Structures are given as C-alpha cells and as structure tokens.
C-alpha cells in the first residue's frame, strides 16, 4: 500500500499541502514537549532534564517499530523508504560540529524554529546564524569538497552493518531505550534541580 505519494496513490500535487500539515503537527508536538526552551534542551547534557532523550528515543522507537510492523503487515513497503546515505567523514565530523553547536547554541534547527515561533529572541538569532553557517559552508565548499564526498558507503542500514536481522536489531533497540529511560530517571533524581 504505502508509501502513498511516491506510488501516486495520493497525487504528488498534494504533497506541499501535506507538508504544511505534517509540519504543523511536528511544530506543535515539539513546542508542547518543551523543545522551545534552550535551557530545557541543554538539560540533557547536565542531567537535570532528560526531556530530549525521552522524546527522541520514544519517537525513534515508536516509528521504527511502527515501520517494521507496517512493513510486515504489507501496509508500507520499507524498501521504498528514503535511507540517508552514509558518508563516514560527513556523519562523524558533521555530528561533532553539530554537537558543539548544540551545546553552545542550545538549539537544533527544528527546535530553534519552534522557539523562534513563540518569540524567543535567542532562537531567532540562532536560526539566522544557521543560514549564515550554511552560506559559510558553501564558500569553503571547494576546499572540502573531496573530504565531503569521500568515503561514501551508500544507504546502509544499521542491522545490515551489524549483520543482524531487522527484528533482532529492533528488539535490542527497544531494550536499550527502556534501559536508557530507567537510568536517566535515576540520574535526574540525584542531580540538583535547576529552575528555568
């Protein structure tokens, strides 16, 4: 059955309208979870608020389990889903730079939009400078082009890389998430509360 738009079950002309609706849901959920507060987000790094980890892991587990079962039930053809290609350099260095950006800026792109939408001035500054950063990246791109495009592995799936079946990996993933939830709750109780 699914995915619907790539298979023309829903006319692709609707895709932009659907994008707005999905985006609204995305923004609403992020804001309602408190992702519009940089201090709440940064809590994950200092142990006083693990909201990021909780939302993130719950969402990833729910969606991954859902995709697996939908595929199993024939509702969604998992082979047609977009898998972002794995470039070792890009993923690692990009991840490190983003991690630094996260701890200094306190937002990630999606959350900065949410925070900007409810009037957080720091988030507006963050979003604007994110675009400056992209521009900067395009300026130095010729210098790092080789590095950026090197070590391409194509769209690799993690269970393939680990040599597992998807079901086994997913089961492990669910258990890891559960352990992470329990451990972080314990940590949270011990760490001094921060008012924000």
């Amino acid at each position, binding site marked *: 059955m699914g995915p619907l738009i790539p298979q023309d079950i829903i006319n692709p002309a609707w895709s932009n309208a659907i994008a707005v609706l999905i985006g609204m849901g995305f923004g609403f959920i992020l804001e309602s979870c408190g992702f519009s507060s940089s201090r709440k987000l940064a809590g994950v790094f200092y142990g006083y608020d693990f909201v990021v980890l909780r939302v993130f892991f719950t969402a990833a587990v729910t969606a991954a389990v859902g995709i697996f079962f939908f595929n199993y039930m024939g509702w969604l053809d998992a082979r047609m889903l977009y898998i972002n290609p794995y470039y070792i350099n890009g993923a690692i260095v990009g991840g490190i730079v983003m991690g630094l950006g996260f701890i200094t800026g306190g937002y990630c792109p999606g959350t900065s939009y949410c925070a900007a939408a409810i009037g957080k001035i720091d988030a507006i500054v963050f979003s604007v400078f994110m675009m400056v950063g992209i521009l900067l990246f395009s300026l130095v791109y010729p210098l790092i082009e080789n590095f950026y495009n090197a070590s391409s592995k194509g769209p690799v799936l993690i269970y393939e890389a680990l040599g597992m079946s998807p079901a086994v990996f997913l089961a492990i993933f669910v258990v890891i998430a559960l352990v992470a939830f329990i451990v972080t709750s314990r940590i*949270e109780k011990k760490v001094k509360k921060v008012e924000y």
Partner: protein
Amino acid sequence: MKELQRTDRLLIATGVFILILVIGLLTIKRPYLEYSRDLLSSARDAQNPSMTVYPNDVAALLGQGSKVLLVDVRSEYDFARGHLDNALQIPKIDLLTKKNVEMFRDAVKEHRTIVLYGKDQLDVTAPAMLLRDLGIGDVKVIAGGYEAARKALSGEQADPEEYNAEKAAYNYSEMAKAPPADASAPTNLAPEIVMPVKKAKGKAEGGC
C-alpha cells in the same frame, strides 16, 4: 519532573498505537503467493533429473489421463496450430493468477502431476522452477518441447540424450584449440573483428 506525573494521555496514546498494530496483525492476510522453498534448497534441487519428462515417455504420460495436468505455456496462436491432447493453454505471464494458482493447488491435492511444456525446454524451465519454489508440487517439464513430444507421439523414437540440452555437443577444448574449419580466408579477416555496427545485425539474426 512534574510533567511525568500525568500519564493518562500517555496511556491512551500507547493504547491507540498498540491497538493499530494489533488490528493490523489480526487482519493480516497471508499473501496467496509465498516461496515455500528457500533459495538454497531451490538451488540444490534445480538440476534434479526426475523433473524432466523425455519425449519417449510422453505417450505414457498422456495415458495416465486425468492423473496429469498438462499445461501449454506457448502463445494462443501456436496452441491453435497444434497441441498435446488435454493440454491447457496458459500464457507464462498468467501462471500465477489467483484462479490458476488455486487450480494448481487443487490438482496437487488430487495427486495429479503438473507437467509444463513450451516450444522447447528452456521455455518452461524458469516457470516450472518458480512454481516448485512456491510449493506447488513437483512440476515437471517436457524436454525438447512441443515439437519433440509430437514427433515422439507420432512414432519417431528419439534418444533421450538427444534432448538433454545440457549435454556438451562437442569437445570444446579440442575445438577451441583448432583453427576455424573454414580456412579459406582466416588471416586477412582478423582486422575486422571489432564491428560495433554489426551489433544490430547480429541481434536481428539471433532474434529467435
């Protein structure tokens, strides 16, 4: 964490998610087509000689009457020009329609042998393999195809080896070592080897 105090909505959301999965799993329809044999056993069994009926045995096969389900995969035109008695014409592309799969399964339940034939053995090798992989019994094929079977039925005895398409017809290594049989102009032709233009022609000839 005061947010963690409220769990009513969380439980409802979880319940809805689980409910969707459970409904999905309960209403799941097993596809009517599934491989019942994995690749390994399919590969191991690919060259099982008992799956081939040689032309000389076709008469005996037809003599079994309703114990055999004979399927002709050639085109309707070829079928109209001549076919084996009691054969059913099913084009290759229609072999797996729901109706035909059910018919095959019923035939297997009634202990009938399914035999495919086409214009030659190659014509039915892949379809028979697919049907076997899908667990539709031991689907046999007629070596040499329709023409061979017809000839055998009209009394012409043929050596089964003749219809063993996988038999090496020549001693390849000997033949490849030796010069071309036609030695009229062997050397001066060498420069003409690479002729991409001839590609189309080669294809046209081999269009069969």
